[in-house]
């Protein structure tokens, strides 16, 4: 294999050549990261507390709410209507018209 070509001098692209600036940049990046991480953790912690408090408040409201009377199911009137409709003294025209009105 051919020998590896010498490296090209890329130092002009190196931002750390300006040591003072580079040092300041590194410090700033670290400080920003620490601050943001602290903020993020505080938000998560407070969010968790808020969720727990909201859940507790919801539970308390639910427990303290007056219970509604249990509804008794209404009896179906379908059978009565059927009986009435099938009685021999019901006028079929009246029944027909009633049905037609409902259909509209």
């Amino acid at each position, binding site marked *: 294999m*051919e020998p*590896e*070509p*010498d*490296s*090209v*001098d*890329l*130092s*002009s*692209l*190196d*931002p*750390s*050549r*300006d040591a003072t*600036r*580079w040092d300041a*940049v*590194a*410090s*700033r*990046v*670290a400080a*920003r*990261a*620490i601050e*943001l*991480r*602290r903020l*993020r953790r505080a938000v998560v912690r407070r969010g968790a507390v808020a969720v727990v408090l909201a859940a507790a408040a919801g539970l308390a409201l639910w427990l303290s709410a007056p219970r509604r009377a249990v509804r008794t199911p209404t009896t179906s009137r379908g059978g009565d209507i059927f009986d009435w409709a099938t009685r021999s003294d019901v006028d079929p025209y009246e029944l027909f018209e009633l049905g037609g009105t409902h259909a509209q």
Partner: protein
Amino acid sequence: MAESSVAELVTRAKRGDASAFDQLVRRHLRAAYAVALAVLGRPHDADDVAQDAFVAALERIDDCREPARFSGWLIKIVRNRALHALEKRKLRDAARDHELSNERSFTNSVGDVALRAHLASALSTLTAVQREIVLLHDLDGWSHAELAEALGLSEVNCRQHLFTARRALRAELSALAPEEVRHGTGT
């Protein structure tokens, strides 16, 4: 005092140790810059993206599940951020050429600016992986083993990429400005 390993620093940073954050930044910021530069091609943009990505990575240091592989984890974040920034930049200044006059900070002479422009131009002729390898190796001093682990390649593959990249860079720089091609230290 012996230097702490990266894994130790990451573990300490997870516990909130400020000095660990500081050391992680000092050890890896230039690598982050190299990766951002490989994607963006402009030192100024790479500098900004590297810093932002590093802050974002450290903010979520708890997500780094393998502290010993911090470098690989970090450069993935930097690369993603740089790609995102590249998309935004394309939309923003599709018609605008790179203005060297806008470069701030570490440029300090006309010759330096010209050389940086030549280097950036020559680097742009390489593939993305070649740029990352040559910048991490020749700018930040990564070994082939470190490159291979962080980039998910074999060491042989890394060597091949570096070989091709250096040869292409030399050819490109000679064509651009023969008198300004600086030779390395022979390493």
